[in-house]
């Protein structure tokens, strides 16, 4: 008893407070979605909000029992848990139930759950374990590859299960890799290869090429400021030449036209010309990023096309397109229009709780799961969405704050994993409802209806709170 009370004292009060705040917001929002003025009562366990309440209760019981664990449990069992997770992932792939084209749900009795949700926790633990083991060692190629594989293997299986949303969330772990001091270009390169493929499938090669180009411009311009600081005149000459090149590119290519490839090539020649002018400058290194840029551009423009037309069968491409929401364009567009309309109709202060007319008339598809943000937008307006996102931002920043105060790398890495997961989940979900990101179905943590999502994210948070309570220990 003595130990337990001391844990409760050491648990981060702000984080747990924010956690409870999110749970309550979630429950109230799910209630608002399923609300029916004739029949609804708040304590009705056969309706969605009632079931959600039961799941939240279960999550709290599981969460508080996690606080009674010894924090070394998580370091000791990280590898085993990870191995079991991979096993279940493979099993899921083989026996999964097909829901909306994705084979990522496992059915046990009448209860369906998504192993990918729980796999986030174990993958985070495993990554934390491994990175803490190799702390202090030189980062050899082999070490780095293992770290990438720890993320890549579950991610790969999830992609095979046609669940791109979850795979992207796993991809967010590159933030952690970055924080742990891996070279930036490596992290970016890994990130880009994956993103380029997915986004070229969604948008086609051209916009991705534009995106890549803009990235490299920003990078080059960023570098040239350094140059200006050191060698003023040459730096300014370079910047002027380079900016002229971009301008020519924008005018000549008209951003998205077909002769873009030709223009890009012209621009590259221009960059190299510029490079020769300034190449004797030791503060300016442009060689590597430009090569990577060319490689990625080639991959986007030719590689994706080659893979989809030559390597993959038609039906495989169609499956990829379906899961990326391309082939069903009209519907996806309709969903986003309805979603933007619902959020937009909220105005400054919203229509008031349980008064969301569009929510009530079921105008938005999947509105208790993927598009639940619409309900907040409609009923509480800009004020509501602002405060809600602020709570979430605070929650994520608090987790990063917790991460940075850890003495052991294990705890720090784990905390960063948690922050990354939450961040990407929100970015994709909210981004999609307000039309900034294509429709990729993943839940908004703690808000969307769904038992396994609430439980999995609660476990993720409570393990963090548990190891943070022992932050003075060095966990390996």
């Amino acid at each position, binding site marked *: 008893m003595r130990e337990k009370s001391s844990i409760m004292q050491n648990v981060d009060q702000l984080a747990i407070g924010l956690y409870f705040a999110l749970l309550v917001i979630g429950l109230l929002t799910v209630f608002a979605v399923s609300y029916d003025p004739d029949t609804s009562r708040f304590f009705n366990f056969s309706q969605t909000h009632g079931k959600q309440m039961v799941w939240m209760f279960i999550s709290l019981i599981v969460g508080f029992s996690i606080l009674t664990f010894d924090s070394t449990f998580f370091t000791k069992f990280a590898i085993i848990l990870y191995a079991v997770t991979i096993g279940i992932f493979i099993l899921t792939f083989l026996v999964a139930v097909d829901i909306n084209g994705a084979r990522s749900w496992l059915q046990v009795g009448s209860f369906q759950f998504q192993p990918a949700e729980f796999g986030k926790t174990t993958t985070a633990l495993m990554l934390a374990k491994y990175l803490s083991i190799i702390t202090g060692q030189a980062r050899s190629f082999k070490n780095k590859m293992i770290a990438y594989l720890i993320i890549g293997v579950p991610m790969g299986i999830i992609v095979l299960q046609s669940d791109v949303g979850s795979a992207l969330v796993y991809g967010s772990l590159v933030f952690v890799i970055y*924080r742990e001091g891996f070279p930036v270009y490596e992290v970016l390169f890994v990130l880009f290869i994956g993103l380029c493929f997915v986004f070229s499938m969604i948008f086609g090669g051209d916009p991705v090429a534009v995106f890549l180009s803009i990235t490299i411009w920003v990078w080059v311009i960023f570098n040239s400021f350094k140059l200006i600081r050191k060698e003023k005149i040459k730096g300014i000459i370079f910047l002027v030449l380079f900016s002229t090149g971009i301008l020519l590119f924008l005018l000549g290519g008209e951003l998205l036209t077909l002769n873009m490839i030709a223009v890009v090539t012209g621009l590259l020649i221009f960059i190299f010309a510029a490079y020769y002018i300034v190449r004797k400058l030791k503060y300016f290194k442009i060689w590597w990023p430009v090569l990577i840029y060319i490689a990625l551009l080639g991959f986007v423009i030719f590689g994706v096309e080659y893979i989809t037309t030559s390597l993959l069968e038609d039906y495989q491409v169609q499956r990829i397109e379906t899961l990326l929401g391309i082939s069903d364009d009209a519907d996806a567009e309709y969903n986003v229009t309805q979603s933007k*309309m619902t959020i*937009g*109709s909220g*105005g400054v202060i919203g229509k008031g709780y349980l008064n969301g007319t569009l929510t009530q*008339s079921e105008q938005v598809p999947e509105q208790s799961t993927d598009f639940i943000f619409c309900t907040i937008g409609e009923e509480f307006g800009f004020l509501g969405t602002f405060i809600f996102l602020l709570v979430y931002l605070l929650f994520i*920043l608090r987790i990063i704050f917790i*991460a940075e105060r850890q003495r052991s790398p294990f705890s720090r890495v784990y905390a960063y994993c948690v922050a990354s997961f939450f961040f990407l989940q929100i970015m994709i979900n909210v981004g999609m409802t307000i039309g900034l990101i294509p429709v990729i179905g993943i839940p908004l943590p703690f808000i969307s209806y769904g038992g396994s999502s609430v439980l999995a994210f609660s476990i993720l948070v409570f393990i963090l709170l548990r190891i943070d309570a022992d932050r003075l220990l060095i966990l390996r």
Partner: protein
Amino acid sequence: MAIIDNVKSRSYIIQGVIVAIFVVFFIRLFYLQIIDDTYKQIADDRGIRKEQVDPDRGQIFDRKGRLIVYNEPSYKLMVVPSQVIDIDTVRFCEILGVDKPFFIKKMKEAKNFSRVRESVFLSQMSAEEFGSIEEYLYEFKGFYAALSPVRKYTYPAAAHLLGYVAEVDSNDIKKSVGYYRNADVIGKSGVEKSYEKLLRGEKGYRNIVIDRFGREVGLLNNGSEDIAPVAGKNLTLTIDIELQAYAEKLLANKRGALVAIEPSTGEILALVSTPAYDPNMLVGSARNKNFAKLALNKENPLNNRALSGYYPPGSTFKPVMAALGMDVGSLTADQGYNCPGGYVMSGHKVDCHNHPYASNVELGIGHSCNAYFCYTFKYFMEAHNTPVEGMQDFNDKLAMWGIGTKTGIDIPNERNGNVPDPEDYDKVYGKGRWKASNCVTLGIGQDKLIVTPLQSANSMAIIANGGYFYTPHVLKYAEDADTVLNKFLVRRETGISDSIFPYIQHGMAGAVNYGTARIAQIDSVQVCGKTGTAENPHGKSHSWFSCFAPEKNPQIAVAIIVENGGWGATYAAPIASLITEMYINGKISEKRKALEQRMMDAVLIDVPQPKPEVPADSAKQVQQVQAALLPKKQ
């Protein structure tokens, strides 16, 4: 340590990125919710309902341009449960002619789907049915009617060939990869199924602006974003609907099938399976009741016997056997075989009837001598090195005739028939322990030989053509889609020399002139035919007849089977010859009227032909509709 500091500073970059993304979200939300008015204007307590507009399904015409299938307006009653307030349920049920449990069940289904979106309450009401409730509908808030065309048939005939349409099931939806949705209509059998993609057209969509109560306010952007539906293609079939209806009349109250083909093109002129049903039975509000009735009928009227009925060909196979024998050289045109009342094997005899000596192929066919074709089969087999090789060749040659394999007709659910292969006899007698004499009855179309009526008719077309055929088909042309027909324009060879067919054709003419099929004679037209009697272990033999006419430049080839009809000459030959006469002469001669009447009146089944639950439209009405619709055809 400089490196550590550097790495630690990355924490701020990460936090910076996160904050930046959130700021982007704030800006976007500020724009969406406060600055931008476009969504607010549309969304001022309203929504958009994307409503599917069904295209008109293509109409179907016969080879002479007569309309067979068209669409008739029909209505479905929709309900939006949240708007159903204070209605007089008892009165509502009375007007609609439904009972209360039905009302409660439907409302529950609709509520389970959605409280605020429309569900189908009652589907496929005819214009009259709708007319009787239309004036009261305003009393019942939450209910409204929507148009949904149904198929109508001008002739109560060709049900199997045309097939029927029905609402999609979950399997159809899955297979179509996003095309079909609940309550869409799809062709489930016959031409409706095989040409579904041509007939269905393309769906359209309307974006309807609705207020917060789900009431229609207008069209989004005055309908500029709507997609108009594209009507399905009209099809013209090869069948002659009058001939088809005539054939069905002759075969009424019998179990059987008939296929008539134009030999020079492979075009199906008529394709009958009886007991048949009126295609109008599977339409409208009575559909489900009628479908159950047909499915439970013990004569199985839904089964298309013409393509999937399995029958031993019996004597109608003899002309084919003659062609095979002459092809390998084991039979010559002037070969005669003695018939001592049958074909005698050790301890066993294949019986034959009493007939004059068959001194050549023509007489063998003309008199339908069993012994003659047992010998023919025996020597065919012995022309090969081993029985296995012989049987294999028998299989291969018949496959070229479309026997034992699907002919490839453009109607679904065709079956293969059966030609026994060497392994089948290996199983019975042991490997290598059987020879021709174990299976001589194959030569007279028995043993394990099974054909469908379509294959039998196609064999006649081959003999009529002199050794080749075109894949039997029912589509003559489709509006703006000529390419579908290319596969039907390919001449398929049987590999048998055309020089031997005159003997066979002549033999079949003999069967009609002096042999077993004299009843099939028609004035001024030389019919070539062959009767058959398929032994039936379960009861009376099946009556077969296949024929073509005229002998020179044949216009029609027919095969018919009448189950339990006894001898080929009893029912099959008269009916086939009447159809041939009707097709070629356009009328039945006076002296054969009595025969025609006798055939129409004959009843060979216990259960009378199914009658529709709701009487089909009267002929007069049909003519009116036809007259109204025909000028619309381009």
